[in-house]
């Protein structure tokens, strides 16, 4: 440990449930309490709690098979939960009628329907189901498929097909949009454009977005709040910064020591460490660099804590004192 540096920075109590920033006076758009889901003998969700507020972009992360799709499908009304309470746009999804459906848009993880249809034909057709649809031509421009308007759906590339799925998901001007791994197969430019589109929908039109992804950069870039679904429970939920705090993931401080060796240390409070270094050196510090924990650091940290089972089970976090690996990195 750094001389004079106290590692006893208060570690946030992990908040496995609930919103980090409750929006006062508004009913959450999505509210789930103690939702469980069992497939035969396999219990996939053991009590999921979620609150998603209007206009928020909310990302659901978790390893393969964690139950993300299952959770999203329960909220979409496609799957009957085994137990628990769910309200989506003020209704129980299991009893959602057509009017309710019309307020929801979705992009599923995998579909290959309507192969023979032409792109514009399909979008125009699906516009016909909604009372106030978007203009299909504008929508095609928005997702960058204008050139492919006359092409058969089965002739689209994977990424183009996915963009068409996104266009179909928002053609009815939904208030709530579910996106299950929407950017799988996107090239970097398409991904960027997709991010701009989702942000625009949320910021300008107040659309609430629930997104699942394996792309942590994407979650960090887009999401106001992130929830981590591990082992059938929401293990952490909050803004990326709050998550880092909950995970006790620490920032990395790098500098070059007087003898020219590179040094590296992880600190829960990097500002304090830097101040101490300055004080010790009594002057500028060569090669000083502070890297805040990326979402990837946080994610992996939390995941390991879960799977090791040594710490943090049921979301009650211990202190980071049990984790001896971080402080020893100093002499790297």
């Amino acid at each position: 440990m750094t001389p004079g540096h106290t590692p006893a920075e208060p570690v946030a109590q992990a908040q496995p449930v609930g919103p980090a920033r409750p929006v006062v006076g508004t009913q959450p758009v999505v509210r789930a309490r103690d939702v469980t889901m069992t497939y035969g003998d396999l219990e996939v969700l053991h009590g999921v709690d979620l609150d998603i507020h209007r206009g928020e972009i909310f990302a659901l992360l978790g390893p393969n098979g964690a139950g993300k799709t299952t959770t999203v499908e329960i909220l979409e009304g496609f799957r009957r939960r085994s137990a628990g309470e769910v309200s989506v746009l003020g209704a129980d999804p299991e009893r959602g009628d057509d009017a309710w459906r019309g307020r929801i848009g979705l992009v599923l993880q995998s579909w290959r329907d309507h192969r023979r249809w032409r792109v514009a034909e399909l979008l125009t057709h699906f516009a016909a189901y909604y009372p106030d649809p978007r203009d299909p031509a504008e929508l095609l421009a928005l997702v960058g498929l204008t050139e492919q308007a006359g092409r058969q759906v089965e002739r689209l590339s994977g990424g183009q097909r996915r963009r068409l799925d996104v266009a179909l998901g928002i053609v009815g001007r939904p208030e709530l949009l579910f996106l299950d791994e929407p950017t799988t197969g996107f090239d970097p430019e398409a991904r960027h454009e997709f991010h701009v589109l989702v942000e625009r929908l949320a910021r300008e039109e107040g659309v609430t977005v629930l997104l699942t992804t394996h792309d942590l950069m994407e979650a960090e870039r887009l999401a106001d709040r992130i929830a981590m679904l591990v082992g059938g429970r929401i293990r952490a939920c909050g803004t990326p910064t709050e998550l880092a705090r909950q995970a006790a993931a620490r920032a990395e401080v790098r500098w070059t020591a007087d003898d020219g060796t590179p040094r590296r240390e992880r600190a829960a409070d990097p500002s304090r460490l830097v101040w101490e270094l300055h004080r010790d050196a009594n002057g500028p510090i060569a090669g000083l660099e502070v890297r805040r924990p990326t979402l990837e650091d946080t994610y992996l940290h939390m995941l390991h804590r879960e799977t090791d089972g040594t710490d943090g089970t049921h979301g009650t976090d211990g202190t980071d004192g049990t984790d001896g690996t971080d402080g020893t990195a100093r002499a790297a």
Partner: protein
Amino acid sequence: MTNAWRAGLQRGRIELRHLLRSPKEMSGHLTNVVVALVIAAYVTGHVPGTHVPMAHLLLAGFAAYLLFQIGLVNLPQILVTEREEGTLLRLRATPGGIPAYLVAKTLLVVAVAVGTLALLLAVAALLADGPLPHGPGGWLTLLWVTTLGLLAVVPLGAAIGAVLPNPREALALIMLPTMGLLFTSGTVFPITSLPVPVQQVASVFPLKWMAQGLRSALLPDTARTAEAAGSWELPMVALVLSAWAVLGFLLAVPLLRRAARRESGSRLSARHRRAAQSGALPG
């Protein structure tokens, strides 16, 4: 609801256009017609005890079989494929999507049935003096037997399409019994030439009655002496076909509802994964 109707009709028209432009599917339907015409052209002789050419009996039988096949082979295949690809799921996620889907499919099935039937009878009449209804009564019989025949097989086909596992297995499961009925229902040769137990089994199923009804519409009245009962038994035709229609609806409504309810993204992904592993689907 009006939205769903409009969307359904639009959908039906678009699907029909796709069908007409799909060489593979069109050749499937046309092959049936051509096979019927070719066989009819080679058949000689008369229906025993009458002056009716055997070819006419065969064409009337094939006409019934075409309807039967559209309802019980083509429709289930379309349903199973569209379940697997996610079409049904997408419509489920769309307000009014499922009613629109049903409207579109009805439109499609009726159009294909009427189209192939008309083509078969028109070409046969033009090229080979084929059978046509005699007088308004004959046309009326043709109309109601066709309608009731479709009502007997289409809901049943929808029910089958709602439960069958996947398009590849589905075809094998449906084709065998269908072919069996083709040869035992008196469609391609006089039913009286078959052993009585076979006749009895076949008379449980709608194909025999559809064929008999169409014969009564298309063949001269004298041909009824070749029927098992010595008459057309039209009340019985109506009764059996109605019974199948009722049974079909009773099965189709809950089974389709269940199929739509069970569709979800993760089932779709699981199926695609399996299909990709077996190399059956690209990507």
